[in-house]
């Protein structure tokens, strides 16, 4: 995009914004204005599409995303296990651009000024907004693992907890590992992105070993005292399918690493691995964590559940993994998509001068593969509770699979194809 075009677009956005504030107080009108969405993952992409779709084009939407294409974290463990490719988990932003006329800018946002309703871009220039949506996902707290707090160590000891180059690199490390080697995966204390994800990864790496390097081992160093998600189903898979491969070690919080020797350092123990995969502790993505928004535990953004709006910074909405979650609510791509719809509905009401819906509902479905064909799920439904001012799980609803099976393995791919289309097509 040329600068001229961008400036013209901003003028239109500002004019639409002025109209919104002129008519904003009337209530019940048609939403108009300019919404800037930061981050084009499960939350941000859904937000951009639904704002355009539900406003029937009345609201201008700019999406700022640092990557040229969307790469899915869900299903990426199958790439690490070797049965899917990066192409299988990559979707372009062309649908958002062409079908929904979302202005997609490939850039990073370096600052937010909620008072001026403006953001600054890394490549230069500012964008003004009527409402801002931050969907930055998580960033890693490398300072909690001193030996990993430098670029050389991070290039060797991978997280692969953001799908992309690290997914490919971890797969390469596993392919290069000798038969009889040890793959160790370190899981941080909850909350972290995708609670069942590390256990799924352990299963799929073990499945790969079983097929290609049967003398190899998978050691799970869990910083938690027990399996965080789908415990019974994962433990059954480990004992039924990977009895001599997977070694699960709870209460094994990582304190440090020695990158030179690929050693995980625990409180009372050390473990040297051939492939060491450390999922570091996490917090809200940088732009949400460092823009002066109120955080909880210095890590996650405090939001109003009727609007997904920051409790401290009016006009700034935050969705997805970056928020302090409601009780039992996981940090998942599915949930980020649901936050986006709740937020989009609220933003359109607010731009039209109406209050957000008082009765929002969100639900989660999360499939995990335990081998290349069989999957298990956890599901939940959450509704707004006026007394506690948060979303509460609906009693009696949700649950996990009765047993692992291939039907759910197919459903997991069906889920992926449909949610990618729901976000991007």
């Amino acid at each position, binding site marked *: 995009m040329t600068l001229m075009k961008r400036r013209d677009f901003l003028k239109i956005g500002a004019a639409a914004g002025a109209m919104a504030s002129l008519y904003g107080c009337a209530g019940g009108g048609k939403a108009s204005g300019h919404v800037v969405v930061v981050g084009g993952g499960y939350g941000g992409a859904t937000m951009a599409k639904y704002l355009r779709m539900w406003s029937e084009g009345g609201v201008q939407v700019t999406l700022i995303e640092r990557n040229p294409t969307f790469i899915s974290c869900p299903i990426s463990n199958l790439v690490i296990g070797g049965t899917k490719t990066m192409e299988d988990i990559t979707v372009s932003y062309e649908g958002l651009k062409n079908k929904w006329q979302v202005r997609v800018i490939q850039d990073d946002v370096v600052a937010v000024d909620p008072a001026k309703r403006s953001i600054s871009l890394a490549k230069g220039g500012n964008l003004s907004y009527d409402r801002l949506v931050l969907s930055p996902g998580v960033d890693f707290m490398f300072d909690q693992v001193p030996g990993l707090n430098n670029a050389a160590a991070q290039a060797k000891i991978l997280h692969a907890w953001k799908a992309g180059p690290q997914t490919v690199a971890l797969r390469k490390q596993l392919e290069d590992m000798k038969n009889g080697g040890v793959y160790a995966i370190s899981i941080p204390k909850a909350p972290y992105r995708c609670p069942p994800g590390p256990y799924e990864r352990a299963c799929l790496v073990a499945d790969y070993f079983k097929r290609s390097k049967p003398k190899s081992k998978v050691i799970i160093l869990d910083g938690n005292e027990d399996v965080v998600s789908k415990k019974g189903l994962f433990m059954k898979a480990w004992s039924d399918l990977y009895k001599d491969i997977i070694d699960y070690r709870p209460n094994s919080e990582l304190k440090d690493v020695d990158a030179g020797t690929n050693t995980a350092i625990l409180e009372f123990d050390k473990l040297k691995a051939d492939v060491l995969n450390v999922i570091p502790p996490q917090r809200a993505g940088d732009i949400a964590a460092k823009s002066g928004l109120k955080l909880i535990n210095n890590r996650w953004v405090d939001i109003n559940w009727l609007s997904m709006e920051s409790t401290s910074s009016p006009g700034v909405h935050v969705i997805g993994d970056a928020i302090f979650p409601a009780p039992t609510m996981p940090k998942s791509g599915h949930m980020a998509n649901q936050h986006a719809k*709740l937020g989009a509905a609220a933003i359109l009401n607010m731009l039209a001068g109406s209050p957000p819906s008082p009765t929002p509902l969100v639900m989660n*479905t999360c499939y995990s593969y335990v081998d290349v064909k069989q999957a298990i*799920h956890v599901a939940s*439904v959450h509704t707004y509770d006026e007394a506690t001012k948060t979303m509460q799980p609906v009693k009696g609803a949700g649950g996990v699979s009765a047993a692992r099976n291939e039907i*759910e393995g197919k459903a997991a791919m069906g889920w992926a194809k449909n949610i990618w289309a729901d976000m991007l*097509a």
Partner: protein
Amino acid sequence: MKLLPTVAALGLLAATSLAQAADPNLARNLAATCANCHGTNGKAVPGAGMDELAGTDKAKTLQKLAEFKSGAKPASIMHQISKGYTDEQLDLIATYFAAQK
């Protein structure tokens, strides 16, 4: 005895109207929670194995959901999800999807 279903239906109507007064887009917003698996506005991705809800007769959707909820219809996941919605909410969702072309 014949009055009972009518009274129940009227009660359902009243509850639905109240909820919709508080949120005129309630049906749209609730139906959007199904879209992750069943496609935007119930238009599922072809060949991905998920039920298409767009344009489906309201009574048919409601019956299916009631059977999921009661456990009469075997399911891998819908029996757990459907229990998270009230009958009023399911009525709104089924109405919304029936109207999608």
